[in-house]
């Protein structure tokens, strides 16, 4: 089915050049690629000079969406992690089941459930907030897993020492314990944060005007999907780079503050 067609496309040029029947495969391959890039439609990145405002608007929505989801899903993840360690067994069970469900269904489905479901039960919510809610709900359990592992990485002695000094539970959590989860939790946290960024592309399906849907809107009109999708991909990579920077900063912070012994 598809595979022969793809192969034919790649190597197709070998036979198509009239007058050069006996060319060796490699050079034929090269001319094939060259001819692919030239025709039937030549690539022309100057289209970006026209469409960049639309892509920029999309990128800003993508950043907004990513930021909001991280803003809500991070504390929600800490909450999930704390509930997963709760003393009451029923609570732990409930968190486990919810986490299993959320991690077993496609994020797109959660997005659709919010988008189509909220109006049915009487809440008219515009696309962006419903996408934020869906992705927060979905990511909270992934972040929960990250912070649970992070909390497990902090020795019990730290809780005990804080308690012996008379520090309050809230202060113990925020000043003593959570900062210490950074070495263990930061790399998976950042990798999930980039998943959030990439996942915001799904919001295109529920009419949020983020980068991917902006790209689609402009390439549908200009018939330049190649150039525009490459540009969109580059913008995503650029935003990704910010996360990598944050991770490097965090690792530098943690270097001297590593657990002693």
């Amino acid at each position, binding site marked *: 089915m598809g595979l022969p067609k*793809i192969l034919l496309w790649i190597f197709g040029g070998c036979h198509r050049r009239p007058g050069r029947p006996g060319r060796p495969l490699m050079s034929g391959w090269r001319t094939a690629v060259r001819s692919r890039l030239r025709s039937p439609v030549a690539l022309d990145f100057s289209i970006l000079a026209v469409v960049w405002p639309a892509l920029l608007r999309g990128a800003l929505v993508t950043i907004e969406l990513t930021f909001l989801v991280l803003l809500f899903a991070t504390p929600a993840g800490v909450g999930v992690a704390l509930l997963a360690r709760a003393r009451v067994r029923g609570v732990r069970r409930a968190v486990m089941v919810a986490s299993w469900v959320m991690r077993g269904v*496609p994020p*797109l489905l959660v997005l*659709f459930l919010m988008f189509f479901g909220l109006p049915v039960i009487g809440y008219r919510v515009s696309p962006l907030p419903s996408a934020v809610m869906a992705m927060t709900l979905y990511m909270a359990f992934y972040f929960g897993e990250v912070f649970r592992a992070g909390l497990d990485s902090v020795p019990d002695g730290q809780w005990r020492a804080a308690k012996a000094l008379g520090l309050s539970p809230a202060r113990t959590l925020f000043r003593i314990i959570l900062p210490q989860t950074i070495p263990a939790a930061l790399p998976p946290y950042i990798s999930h944060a980039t998943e959030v960024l990439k996942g915001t592309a*799904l919001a*295109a399906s529920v009419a949020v005007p983020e980068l991917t849907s902006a790209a*689609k809107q402009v390439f549908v009109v200009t018939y330049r*999907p190649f150039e525009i*999708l490459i540009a969109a*991909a580059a913008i995503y990579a650029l935003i990704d780079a910010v996360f990598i920077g944050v991770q490097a900063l965090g690792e530098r912070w943690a270097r001297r503050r590593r657990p002693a012994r």
Partner: protein
Amino acid sequence: MSLTEIVTPYLPGLLSGFLMTLWLSAAVILVSTPLALLLALLRDSHNFWLRLPATVYVTIFRMVPALIVLFFAFYALPQLGLRLKPVTAAILGMVAVGAAYMSEDIRGGLQAIDRGQWKAARALGLSHAHTLRRIILPQALPLVVPPYMTRAIIMMKGTSLASMVAVGDLTAEAVRASSITYQPFIFIILAGAVYLAISAALVIFQHWAEARLKPAPMARRRV
């Protein structure tokens, strides 16, 4: 209207969507696996010119949303003269992304094998390929299975993206049914339950595979 009355008219569509999801998942996972293994080996290669393209490929495809890649396969390739059916384009896009992620999972397992194993094999005069095939991969396999299966489940869930490039998979059918009936809860939760069932089946397979591959007890010297 009762639940059955609402659901029945859409059952054939949902069923074909379910089969499409199964087909997409199987195709994506099975095609990605050898590519991922190849990428993992290339990335750990001693030859810079083999390592570089593999690293660039993996980095790029892990930095970009899968949906962009899918759109690329579906909308941009025709611009270059390659017109694919939606299903083929979807599989191509998801394999391109999935193989990049999966190669990282496999690489983790390969790197966990003690370097002494490589040295010992080289000291015995075994070739690189032989060492890899007979010494390293068999030891890495049990370590790779858990992350590999986690990735397989993520890829299975990821096939729902195909619904965005006009493939009639389970998600597409469920969304279509809910937008006609205004019963999103029924159809989307139904679809969610089916996805859960597929991931549960994959988890069961994982446990089975882990049990079969339980590393043979290491020969211990008596002290």
